[in-house]
């Protein structure tokens, strides 16, 4: 009964390919996020959606495009993958903007671009 589930957990792909990571939450939360954790473990926000509306769009290459078909889902599509995209990508969700209870994270997707 996973609260925030991401698929796939591991993804190995070649440079130049296009890939998607899916995220679903069953907590009834209003807001969902994508974070990138680099090789030094630093976590940085990429996007957030509140009720399907984009509210945070950090400075990421436009090869990254989030899509939220409904408030329980937030997918991340990456075009023309580059070596530097290799990282762990975390999906998270929160009630409202998470001030009171923080975020619930998925287990992460380790993306390796070769």
């Amino acid at each position: 009964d996973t609260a925030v589930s991401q698929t796939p957990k591991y993804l190995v792909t070649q440079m130049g390919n296009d890939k998607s990571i899916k995220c679903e939450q069953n907590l009834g939360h209003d807001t969902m996020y994508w974070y990138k954790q680099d090789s030094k473990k630093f976590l940085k926000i990429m996007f957030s959606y509140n009720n399907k509306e984009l509210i945070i769009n950090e400075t990421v290459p436009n090869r990254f495009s989030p899509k939220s078909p409904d408030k329980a889902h937030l997918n991340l599509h990456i075009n023309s993958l580059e070596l530097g995209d290799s990282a762990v990508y975390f999906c998270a969700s929160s009630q409202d903007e998470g001030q009171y209870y923080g975020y619930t994270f998925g287990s992460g997707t380790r993306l390796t671009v070769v």
Partner: protein
Amino acid sequence: AQTVTQSQPEMSVQEAETVTLSCTYDTSESNYYLFWYKQPPSRQMILVIRQEAYKQQNATENRFSVNFQKAAKSFSLKISDSQLGDTAMYFCAFMGRKNSNSGYALNFGKGTSLLVTP
């Protein structure tokens, strides 16, 4: 912009001992929220404890407690009676926003890797 600084990249503590992880932050906001997250080798991000800035009382959760010093902008985590399962990366995080037009987001420090030894 808010920044979160964790000055101890690595720490080690023996089982049953107490350890304190430091965190400082910078903000011009008067009300905000602070969090500590734990990331064990399994990679899962787990909320450890949270603190609301307008509350004077330090938060506690079982063996975990914080020392929140608002004037000094300091938010340290104390782990009492350390257990082997506490071995993990610990991240301090500040809930804030870039500007009044931006949404709120968790801004993380670079983390402290804690090793609990037998």
